[in-house]
């Protein structure tokens, strides 16, 4: 860090990204929220004047199970991703430089093919006539009439698949900075391998853990392609509903109200995390 530079000048450096964020993120977000207070017109556009009617519409109890499903699927995906990413990040930080690069590449490789294509791949893999289903039935691991596709478990599986790299990368960044000598100290003080991992490594990568959790959870909340494609009719997530309101119902204010509500539901927990991290940082220094 260049400490001799006056702080006001340093602030200028953030100007381009700040401008980008306000033009392409903050303004559209405000527009979405504003649209929620506009009446819908019959052509699928936004009418003149202001109304609170849409806010009453979205309080429809029919949304409650969808909202609940969105949150538990996202939460569960986050937990599974963290559980899988922790040992992976641990190993990645411990292996040699060459192996580390290979592993990093393997984590990133899925991004080289299109997201939709990967989801289609899952769809054909899990299809009743697909190779995996046939193999598992052939090995008598699942009953003859089992369907792997189109239920909540499938959505969870594919969500975990798509989000796992977003959990591994921040955790790996944290693990790389972790002092593995601390694990020797833990073993020396009587902790077995597992307790050294859980009592010393996991708290040691706490910041990475929080970033990974926020990243995965927030990305899951907005998902609509995955539940649409591999989920069943009763596995809709809030994202699917928003897409439906935009594309099928052509009711932009309604979609805006849902999207705005979801946005607040995401931003508030993040705000809490940011404040909490700021506080804990103050405590350390």
């Amino acid at each position, binding site marked *: 860090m260049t400490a001799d530079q006056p702080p006001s000048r340093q602030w200028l450096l953030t100007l381009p990204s700040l401008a980008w964020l306000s033009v392409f993120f903050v303004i559209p977000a405000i527009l979405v929220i504003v649209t929620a207070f506009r009446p819908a017109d019959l052509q699928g556009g936004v009418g003149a004047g202001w109304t609170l009617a849409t806010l009453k519409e979205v309080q429809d109890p029919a949304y409650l199970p969808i909202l609940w499903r969105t949150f538990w699927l996202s939460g569960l995906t986050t937990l599974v991703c963290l559980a899988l990413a922790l040992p992976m990040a641990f190993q990645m930080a411990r292996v040699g430089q060459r192996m580390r690069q290979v592993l990093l590449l393997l984590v990133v490789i899925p991004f080289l093919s299109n997201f939709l294509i990967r989801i289609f791949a899952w769809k054909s893999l899990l299809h009743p006539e697909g190779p995996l289903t046939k193999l598992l039935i052939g090995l008598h691991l699942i009953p003859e009439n089992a369907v792997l596709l189109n239920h909540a478990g499938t959505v969870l599986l594919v969500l975990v698949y798509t989000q796992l790299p977003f959990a591994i990368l921040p955790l790996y960044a944290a693990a790389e900075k972790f002092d593995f000598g601390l694990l020797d100290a833990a*073993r*020396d*003080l009587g902790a077995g391998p597992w307790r050294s991992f859980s009592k010393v490594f996991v708290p040691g990568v706490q910041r990475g853990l929080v970033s990974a959790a926020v990243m995965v959870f927030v990305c899951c909340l907005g998902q609509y392609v995955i539940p649409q494609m591999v989920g069943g009719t009763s596995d809709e997530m809030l994202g699917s509903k928003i897409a439906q309101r935009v594309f099928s119902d052509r009711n932009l204010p309604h979609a805006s109200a849902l999207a705005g509500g979801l946005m607040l539901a995401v931003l508030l927990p993040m705000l809490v995390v940011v404040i909490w991290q700021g506080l804990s940082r103050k405590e350390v220094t």
Partner: protein
Amino acid sequence: MDDFLVIDHVSKSFGAQRAVDDVSLTVGKGEAFSLLGPSGCGKTTLLRMIAGFERPDRGRILVGGQDITALPPELRPVNTVFQNYALFPHLSVWENIAFGLRMSRRPREEIRSGVDRMLELVRLSEHARKRPGQLSGGQRQRVAIARALVNRPQVLLLDEPLAALDLKLRQHMLMELNTIHEQVGTTFIYVTHDQGEAMSLSDRIAVMNAGKVEQVDTPEHLYEMPRTSFVATFIGDANFFTGIAVELQHEGYVRVLIEGLGSPLVLSNGELSANQKLRLMVRPEKISLTLKRPPSGERVNAFSGIVEDMAYFGSHTRYRIRAGEHSILAQLQRSRFSGGEIDPARGSEVWMSFHPDEARVVRLEA
């Protein structure tokens, strides 16, 4: 000397590198013992094998009669003070010290009293709630010692305990470590590359070189009676002369012919035969400097030389003196009685003399 910690023919290789080569040592209960040597001599590997982080290729390690060679670190009655202290940054000082007791699932009351007692021992009670990041280097080290000692280990290993501290603090912690050792009475094993540290901390020192133990002895013996020239140079400074035993006298005295210097009389500590080649060691401070030839006698070895170089250290002055082929280090302690009257200048002739008992015959290395 009871054999409390026994290292029995232990070897360890990393690839083709023999880090520890057939080392055998015994350390008594309650002893303060040092493994001393240059970096890469195998002392740290030996320490890690005692702690359980490395498994010896051959040999056994016993503590109090129990063979611990195959035990993982968490099951050994041994605790370590790591070189960089390895304090857990996410835990307070109090929780760091409590860690070991929590791992062995001791009752809450025992943990509380144990940690508080340790905090008192290392005088950190008022810092109990702080994080390691908020402490000074010396305080961190005291936490590391407390965190290890609270488990009442049978052996405490200290890996370069003073290396990370600045000079003033190091001198202070040296005293502190001795006090703590006296108070708890645990067997302390230091690993250090600093001979001064080893000398002032330990009852006995094992000097290691290239994976082997050169000599195990008390600090006084290592300094006064080094058996090898490696030990002589690693602990203090030394002048070496290669010569031939020309005349064996009674009571172990021997006259040695040193090409280009003379034939001093010295005391030998081992068996020698006539005409045997040998190596002689004289410490710089054992050589007296005078401007005139000292009164000759049977028990005085005197040679003349020219002052080549000198360096003033405050408490003493170092002289490099040339005598023919030989370049000899001598040290002058200035006081009114000794050497106060002489002040040899560069290029002037001086007389060096030493008593036969102050020279040592060391092993002749190939």
